[in-house]
Each structure stands twice: as C-alpha cells, then as structure tokens.
C-alpha cells in the first residue's frame, strides 16, 4: 500500500458560525488525480480553502494529514512550503507587485535560497511558453486587470513554477475559451505526468478532463461527500447530472 499523500479525516468546517462541511474523509496518494464535483454552494471551494488554511474557514473538528504530518493547525505559508497548492476560483488582484517579482519571491521562500535573475527568467519563459502566455504578462501587476481567462492561466503558471506535490484546482477551467481549456489542460498534464504531481480538480465541466488521466471521482453535496467512485462517474454526471445521487 502506497503511503497516502493527503489524508482528511472527519473534517468539519465553519464559516463564521455556520457549519459548511460536515464530515469529510478524503485520501489522495502521490501522483493520483481526483475529481471533485457537486452542485453550486455544496462546499467545494470551502474544502479547498480549509485544506490550504484560509483563516476565515475554521476547522471545528477532524484532521488533515499531509505527507504524514498533521497540518490541521499549520499556517498557510507553511502548508504551501510543505507542497500544497491551491489554484483559486477567483484569483486576487494585487496592485504594485509584478507577476514575475511575486513568483520569484515565492520561489525563493520555498527553496530558501536566492535565485539568480537569469535562471529565474529562463524557467519563467519556459513555463509561459508552455501556456502560450505573452512574456509581457510577467511584468504586469499580479492579476491586476487580467481577464478571467488570463487569471486562470496565471494560476497554472504559478503551479508549474512552484511545482507542489498536491494541487487543488478550483474551477480553473471556468471562464476559459475552448482553446485556452486545451492549453491549460496541457499545462496540467505536464504537472501530472512529468512531475508526478497529485491533483484534486474541482470542476463543473468535463472538457478539461478529456486529455487527463483520472483516478477517482467524488461528489460533494450539502457539505458532505455523498459518493466516491472511479473515473467513469465523471461521464455519468455529465450525462445525467447530480439528481440521482442527491435522492439517496
């Protein structure tokens, strides 16, 4: 049995005083790709935030173990350094910080060493080329004035640069045009295949999954995981919706 990379046990999460997630169990092994689907407002983003450690989402019970370490109480930056990544459903705009200087700072914090400007630029150019992003974006303020699709591409750029062990992608495909979905999907595939990265993909759309290998699928509804299955479940949901699962 391979060691679990992520082990979520009986996780309960509140926003302010309202319980959003009830009792979540989730196991992800290194290199595995899991798909998380569910109706709007089910709590998918909440799960992503709670795993990443957003202080607005209070963990009231249960535990998160990552790489054998209990990270339930760990600060956000330490989780990131431990190898966790979240691609935001709505990436924040941060004026006055260029995408490239932000990424360089993040990489330096992660690696604990200064990176030579030249080496960094080479790495960045490569990743941007893969995502067919114009180099000019690197010098623009982080997400500021980026279109919805550009923000999502910039998230995947960060994923490729930071190279975590587990990436949670929260509706990275929403807002992308047909071509962009393909490009982003290629980026994710690179992460999956060449870096053996594990993924938890939150999506409403199966398009992004077409080119990707999927190991497991979960349905989250009203704050609980109501179904765990293999990749075939994706197809079924896209044909018939969630209705049949919700009735049970």
């Amino acid at each position, binding site marked *: 049995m391979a060691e679990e990379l992520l082990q979520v046990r009986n996780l309960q999460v509140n926003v302010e005083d309202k319980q959003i997630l009830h009792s979540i169990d989730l196991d992800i092994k290194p290199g595995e790709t899991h798909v998380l689907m569910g109706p709007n407002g089910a709590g998918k983003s909440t799960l992503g935030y709670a795993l990443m450690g957003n202080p607005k989402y209070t963990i009231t019970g249960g535990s998160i173990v990552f790489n054998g370490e209990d990270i339930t109480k760990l600060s956000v*930056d330490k*989780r*990131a350094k431990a190898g966790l990544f979240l691609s935001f459903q709505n990436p924040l705009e*941060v*004026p006055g*910080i260029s995408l490239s200087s932000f990424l360089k700072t993040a990489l330096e914090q992660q690696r604990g060493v200064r990176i030579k400007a030249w080496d960094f630029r080479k790495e960045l150019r490569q990743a941007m080329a893969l995502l067919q992003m114009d180099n000019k974006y690197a010098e623009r303020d982080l997400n500021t004035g980026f279109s919805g699709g550009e923000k999502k591409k910039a998230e995947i750029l960060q994923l490729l640069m*930071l190279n975590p062990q587990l990436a949670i992608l929260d509706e990275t495909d929403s807002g992308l045009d047909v071509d962009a979905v393909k490009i982003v999907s290629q980026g994710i595939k690179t992460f999956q295949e060449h870096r053996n990265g594990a993924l938890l993909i939150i999506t409403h759309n199966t398009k992004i999954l077409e080119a990707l290998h999927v190991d497991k699928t979960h349905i989250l509804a009203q704050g609980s995981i109501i179904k765990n299955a293999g990749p075939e479940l994706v197809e079924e949901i896209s044909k018939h919706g969630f209705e049949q699962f919700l009735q049970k």
Partner: protein
Amino acid sequence: MEEKTFVEDIDRSLYDFRNEDKDAYRIEEGLTKEIVEQISREKHDPEWMREFRLKSLDVYNKTPMVQWGPSIEGLNMDNIVTYVRPNTKMQGKWEDVPDDIKDTFERLGIPQAEQTSLAGVGAQYDSELVYHNVRKEVEEQGVVYTDMESALNGPYADMVKEHFMMLVPPTDHKFAALHGAVWSGGSFVYVPKGVKVAIPLQSYFRLNAKGAGQFEHTLIIVDEGADLHFIEGCSAPKYNVANLHAGCVELFIAKNAKLRYSTIENWSKNMYNLNTKRALVAEGGTIEWVSGSFGSHVSYLYPMSVLNGEGAHSEFTGVTFAGHGQNLDTGCKVVHNAPHTTSVVNTRSISKSGGISTFRSSVVVTNKAKQAKSSVSCQSLMLDNISRSDTIPAIDVRTADADIGHEAKIGRISDDAVFYLMSRGISEEEARAMIVSGFADNVSKELPLEYAVEMNNLIRLEMQGSIG
C-alpha cells in the same frame, strides 16, 4: 495566525548609528541676535546676507507659532543648536573626508551610488557640506553644482542674490523666517540653456548632532529647454531630545525646461521636519516632485508649484508612511497662474501602530489660468484600527472653464490578498510588506532602481515585527 502582537521598536540600525560629536564649532543653544551674527561671521556672509539674516530674525520674532496642524509643543527653540560645523572643510575626494564621517556616508551607500548612477554628489553633515563632486562630463556641459557658501561668493553670486528666498520669503511663515536667519549648507545648481543632464545629481543631508537643527538651502535654476533630475536624501540617528529640520528648497524652471525633484526622507523619530519647498515654472516648463516621507516625529511638508507660464505642468507623486508616534502632515499645493496649465497629484498615505497621516492638497486656479486642468488622487491605507488617515482637499477656482478632478480612497489590507500570497509560501509579514510596497508603487516606480530598493527596504523595516 489570529494573534497579533505589535513590536514598536524596529531595527533601524542601518540609519540609527550615531557618531561621537567631534564638531569643530558648535554655536550656543537658542536663538538671539548675537547667535545669528555669529553664524553670519562663521560663514563669511556677504553684507547683504548678514542683513537678510537679521531681518529674518525680526520677522521670526514677530510671527506667531503655527496654530494649525500637528502639535510642535515638544520643540523648544531655546534648546536647539542652530549651527554645528563638522570637523572638516568641504572635500572633493572621499579619501580626504574624516573617517567617521566618511563611514557614515558609506553605510548610507552614497559613495557607491555616486560611482554607479549619479552625475554629482553633495554630502552634508550637520550644518555644512563635507563633500562635493561633479562628474567631469557634466561640468564640461556647463552645469554648476556647488555648496551654497561657495555660490554666494563665486561667479554666480548675483544669480544667487537675485533668487535667494524670492519664492519662499521669510514672511511666508515662522519657520521660513527662522530659515532665513540661521540657514547653512545646502546646494546651488545651475543648468544652462538646452543642457540635458542624463543622470541625476544628489544631495544627502545627515544630521548627527544631538539637539541640533539643520537648515540647508537648496537653490536650483534650470534654464530654458534644460533638463535635470535632482535627488535629495536625508536621515539622522534617534535621540531622546528634539531635533529640527527647517530646510528650504527653491526651484526655478525656465521656459520649456524640466526638473524632477526626488526625495526619500527618513529622519529619525525625534525630528521636527518643518521644511518648505517651492517651484516656479515658466511657459511650457515641467516640475515633477517625487516624494517619499518615512521619518520624523512631526512633519509639515507641502511642496508647492507655481505655474506661471502658459502650458506649464506640475506633477506630484508622493507616499507618506506614519508609524508609531508619528504625525505626518504632508501634501502639495499647486497654483495655476497662466492659461493651459496642468497639474497631476497622485499620493498614497499609509498609517500604522497609531501613526497619523494627514494629506492636504490645495489647488488654486487664478483668473489668468484659462482652461487649466488639474487632477488630484489620494489613497490611504490604514494597517490597524488605532491609526489615522485624513484627506483635506482645498480647491479655489477663479475661472469658468477649469477642469478639476479630485478623488480620495481609504482602504485596508485585504485578508484575502494576504491569504492568496501566503498560499504561495510567502510568510504573513512578507505578504503584508509586499502589499504595502505595491500600494506605494506610484513612487517606487518613478525612482531610480537603487532608490526604489531603498524605499521598499524602509517599508519592510516599518512592517517588521507587526505580526505575532
């Protein structure tokens, strides 16, 4: 994460080192006719200047203390030493500057910057310049950059006399009068017609003496079609008694000339910074103020542009950071006094740990200024609930066709943005510092790289230890 502790004392060792006082001459504390006469003698003033000083002292004695703005009660003129001459003549080579003073400027990075990115440097230590040097190429262009004392007695004496405290007369306010009486140090710059100085000149003012005042006078004349970037830096170690800075900057921008005047001010937090800066801009000329105010206990600072010729333009880009114990009253004034004059004011103010930051802007459009255009934008960032940030705009328009815009915004650091940056492995402190630096990028992106880096370091210093 939730718990935040405030550590008020940040590491200022970079700026906060003191040298033992080894001054050659130090005048008595206080302000009397005798003291003013003595300064005049020490400085070998021409006769007109001696009279000017005494008249200014008169004005000073008749003018009441400033009653508006932050309190300056902690400032007692009877305790201020108005003139401290360092233990050296002005030198043209760093090797010749005494070691302790040279070390000071080395720690501040001045000789290094001079090597790489400046056309000339003046370094003032207490009341007088200890070093002055201009690159040969620049000198060959006819650019004059010298200390005020030499200027008063040199070939440009008449030009100095004609302009000295013409824009800021001693009657302007009490501290202008004080300046007129006891000024010393500072620089004189003349850029001849059509000369474009490719890289900046810099003056650095360091006040080392405890309980002293610094009253440097900067006079810059940029002749027709010429172009100059002048950088001013200042700092001082912290003492537990009041220090005073009442400098004066007068800038004359002739027809179609352009001057950029950049300042990174980082006085120590016992300093009363009551500085006056003014620019007179002729037809088609441009003044660009770039200003970062970080230090001092109390500041009153409102650089003013008088747009006196058709199409003259003023741009003010500023950031003010008020931390614990600081009350920084800053802003800018623009007088549109000719047709088609334009002005842009873009400022950011940050307050933290109980600091107070007030931004005053004043835009005056006289009846001569047909089709004047002005836009003022001020954004404030408050880093906690105990700090304050106010915006006080004043607009006085005497024409029917002026185009005036004003916008003010007050905000806080977004928790979501902090979370976002942290989710990439950046610590909370670093994330906040990045957001604040980003907020102040209106100024940093206008500064030469080294200065932008220094400014971001200052922000980082101020942000240190603000999180538990």
